[in-house]
């Protein structure tokens, strides 16, 4: 594993309040490059607010925690180039990584009072139901099956925590539903998922993440049935 380019980041200035900042975590250099490009092109195409995005890509969960300032080693935050508490709007992480899995990273983030509100999306090449369930139960917003496509990244808009876009957890329901649906459709090689979560613009801009509101797309049975169907489909 080469030691250069293990962290790449764009300059994020605190004044860019409309700029979306995504932290991508993946031990594969190839995947980091691809996810970074996917995120940037999504921003250009207007899938994210104002089209401005900054991506920080790191190669491990440990580096991700260091970046957030959550690692145990850190005593002071100055004099080592550390940029404190850059607002992170989304964390997208690979599941299978040496030393610290994406799941373990997810747990650490959700255990932190400062960072637990940041939406976390897990990526994995393995379509393993117990793994997906475990991640969602631990608070992951969504689970993307690799290889990651543009249509997967389009979905992420719904999880952003910028002021203008606050989503209730009904999107979590539709996120899972769509994701599972995509896995089922993968075999048939259909085109991009054109159905996306309900329009974000209809949501209020209340800062708190509310408990499930009454929404036609989200109900326990809707959530359960795609997963039941998944159990019957073949996996790797």
């Amino acid at each position: 594993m080469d030691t250069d380019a293990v962290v790449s980041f764009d300059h994020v200035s605190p004044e860019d309040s409309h700029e979306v900042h995504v932290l991508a975590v993946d031990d594969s250099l190839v995947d980091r490059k691809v996810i970074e490009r996917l995120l940037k092109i999504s921003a250009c195409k207007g899938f994210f607010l104002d089209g401005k995005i900054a991506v920080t890509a790191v190669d491990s969960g440990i580096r991700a925690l260091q970046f957030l300032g959550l690692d145990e080693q850190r005593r002071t935050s100055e004099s080592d180039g550390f940029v404190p508490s850059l607002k992170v709007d989304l964390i997208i992480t690979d599941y299978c990584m040496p030393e610290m899995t994406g799941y373990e990273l997810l747990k650490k983030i959700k255990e932190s009072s400062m960072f637990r509100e940041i939406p976390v999306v897990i990526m994995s090449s393995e379509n393993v139901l117990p793994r997906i369930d475990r991640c969602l139960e631990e608070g992951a917003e969504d689970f993307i099956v690799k290889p990651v496509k543009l249509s997967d990244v389009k979905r992420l808009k719904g999880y952003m925590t910028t002021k203008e876009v606050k989503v209730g957890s009904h999107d979590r329901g539709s996120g899972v539903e769509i994701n599972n649906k995509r896995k089922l459709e993968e075999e048939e090689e259909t085109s991009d998922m054109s159905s996306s979560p309900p329009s974000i613009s209809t949501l209020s801009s209340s800062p708190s993440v509310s408990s499930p509101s009454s929404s036609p797309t989200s109900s326990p049975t809707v959530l359960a049935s795609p997963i039941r169907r998944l159990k019957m489909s073949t996996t790797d």
Partner: protein
Amino acid sequence: MTMDVNQLRAKLCEHQSAMFHQGFLDDQFSQLQNLQDESTPDFVLEVVTMFFDDSENLIKNMARCLEQVPADFKQIDAYAHQYKGSSASVGAARVKSVCANFRPFCETKNLDGCMECLQQLQHEYSLLKNHLQYLFKLQKDIKAGGGSFS
């Protein structure tokens, strides 16, 4: 002797189609091509170059594991899994498929099976590398001739 841009473009089209048709590349490669634009004109080349480096390291590491006595099957499986991931990410379908073949052999600690897989892997990677390098050369020549390709 230079071919004109139109001839080169025809060759490119034919070569690319063949690569998809013969299963060397899958839809994920198209996904990557769609991510390339004027602001990132070498995106695919850069990703593929990283993939080549990755491939060579992984294959070398897997060979080393197989040479150990006893062979480190757990590590081989881990490398194969890693390689399967990166090949999937670039759309290298045949390489990905061979990577998937390692698992049962690793689980049963079948050295011969693993060695044969590795040979297959080296073969597939080598073919893919040649084909892709030719593809990039055609693209380069088209650009140099003042042309463009979608």
